[in-house]
């Protein structure tokens, strides 16, 4: 049984936003208009957070793509009264749109802010209606939605493997965001398979002490790993200085 996980190398991330667009197209995420952004109700299953570092002339933009962390002990799961959010055996934190009644408690208890609520009926321009992904449910107003590691792709690959009578090959599946990333900053795969790209990347980065997870101390055991940016100035600075 695979245990899906993701590694995001912040040293490679250039903040282009290709992952956001790819996710939007892949998962039938409604078009976020300027209005919706101003209302702070934009839906982006993976979002690009931008932070400024430093004082004015020496400012650096730092980017961090934030998808759902797919916590092993997800705090969003036990608070749902109707079991609309649950854990699959492959470790993915799933959302069942048809069960959801929209209490939004899961979003309250998600500290990565990656659960999104459909405040309005989702709309697409006519020209984009034929572009909707047939493998992904179009959500209605009043339900929560979130990143699910492109579960439809995983299911498709697993079915294909089953038909061909073989096990899933290493790195056979990847998510839309990982696929679209021009610098390969996002890597998706099976954390339990030692040959997978994620495991090897993690093992390598572990030696360089670059691995961390967001809000790791909450004890939810997220399955999205971040690799620290390698700061040339910091590494060349004299020892003991920050």
């Amino acid at each position, binding site marked *: 049984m695979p245990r899906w996980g993701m590694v995001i190398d912040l040293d490679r991330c250039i903040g282009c936003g290709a992952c956001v667009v790819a996710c939007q197209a892949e998962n039938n995420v409604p078009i976020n208009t300027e209005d919706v952004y101003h209302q702070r109700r934009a839906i982006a299953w993976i979002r690009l*957070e931008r932070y400024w570092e430093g004082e004015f002339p020496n400012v650096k933009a730092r980017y961090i793509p934030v998808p759902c962390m797919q916590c092993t002990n997800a705090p969003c799961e036990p608070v749902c*009264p*109707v079991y609309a959010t649950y854990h699959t055996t492959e470790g993915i934190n799933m959302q069942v749109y048809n069960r959801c*009644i929209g209490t939004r408690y899961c979003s309250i208890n998600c500290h990565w802010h990656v659960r999104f609520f*459909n405040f309005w009926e989702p709309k697409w321009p006519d020209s984009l209606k034929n572009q909707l992904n047939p493998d992904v449910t179009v959500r209605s107003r009043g339900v929560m939605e979130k990143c699910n590691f492109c579960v439809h792709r995983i299911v498709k690959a697993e079915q294909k493997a089953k038909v061909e009578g073989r096990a899933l090959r290493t790195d056979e599946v990847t998510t839309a965001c990982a696929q679209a990333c021009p610098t390969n900053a996002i890597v998706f795969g099976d954390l339990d398979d030692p040959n997978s790209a994620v495991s090897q990347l993690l093992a390598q980065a572990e030696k360089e002490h670059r691995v961390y997870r967001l809000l790791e101390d909450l004890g939810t055991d997220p399955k999205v790993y971040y690799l620290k940016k390698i700061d040339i100035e910091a590494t060349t600075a004299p020892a003991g200085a920050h």
Partner: protein
Amino acid sequence: MQERHRLGEEEITRELLRPLVTTTPMMWVGFIGLGAVLAIFVFAVSWMFYWGLGVTGLQRPNMWGFMIVNFVFWIGISHAGVMISAILRLTQAEWRRPVTRAAEVMTIFSLMTAMLHPVIHTGRPWRTLYWVFPYDFWRNLWPDVRGPLVWDPSAILTYLTGSTLFLYTTMIPDMALARDRTTGWRKVLYTILALGWRGNERQWKMQTIAGFLLSGLILPVFVSVHSIVSWDFAVSLVPTWHATVFAPYFVIGAIHSGVSAVVTLMALMRWLFRFDHYIRLEHFDAIGRLLIAVGTGWLWFFLLDIFFAIYPQEPRETEIMTFRLFEWPFNVFTALIFIFGYFIPVPIWIFQRFRRNVKIMFWTSILVNVGMWAERYWLIKPGLMRKYEFTFDWNWYRPSIVEISIVLGSFALVGFLLLVFSKIFPPISVWEEKEGQHFAQQLQVGKRVVNAIVREF
């Protein structure tokens, strides 16, 4: 000690049943005024159903707002009924008699209003009603009993059932009384509700036992309801919500606001129905004394909550506590809570002169509830606005006109239901009042005549 006007049985019956048959102009004003606000409420809710929750001020991360705050507030108000009628009945406090009925009715109506909030607040209310009531334990498809949102309706519905039964038990003798004195549709209604009450000894005995049993049984529910409502917040990981002190803190806060609401109600009833002979100054005096104790208890827990945020030296917790204590607009809320919830009313209640002044009691009780509403907002919102370190996602919450209408409308809804109730059922328990008259005696002590309660138990 003032002289008490001794009332005959017939006089009590006539005066207490008067609101049923005569409608004063002020009652009409109440009906029309509250009805208008209620119409706005219905329109706001329908508007929200039609367009979706987009018409509220909610966004990410402020997924809960005014409606949840108001829900907690009304659950708090609903604690008055049991406090007044069950606890004071068990402790045999005589001054409870004129207010038990009103307090109990307020419990039921405010609970119903409170329950409305989480339902209309969901994304798909039709689904909520269809799937969650009754909860589908049978197919094992939906239940997730780990979640406080499942405990919530269980506790609240238990409380609602218990209080309704309790209220009904205490109403049966009055229904028989009204049955014997009315004609037309009222007679039919009261005949059904009186359940064939004839006032014989066995019936009285059963009714008394049922009253005592129900008041005993309802006590654990009374404590559990607001504890469970507090766990909606306390079991989540949001900083400053995640506090073990929440359960007793919410319960004492509920009693503080609930008993204050009873004072408001007493003053209103005395004014609207001219029940001066029944809701007397000594009743305000007694409830004022109770409020000093309850208010001080609440202040203790309020300070404990702040202390518990400082004590563990958890930076996230202290940061949000600093935010809500010192930063605009929450510093204003803090001041409001302190001043309105405690520092104005309690010192006033210390003086008997003020406790026996209906106007002062009315306005201080209003102040307490303004403070308590602010307290619920203060407890719930700041933690959500600045949840954890992702400053990119921090945001303010601005309630929309729809949410404000719903909050105002909820007050109108409770008021309107109370008015309708007092047009159909006697707002003061007639038999309890008569029973009180039997117990009340005037003893000659030296040269003075002292009012006293003599009863055998």
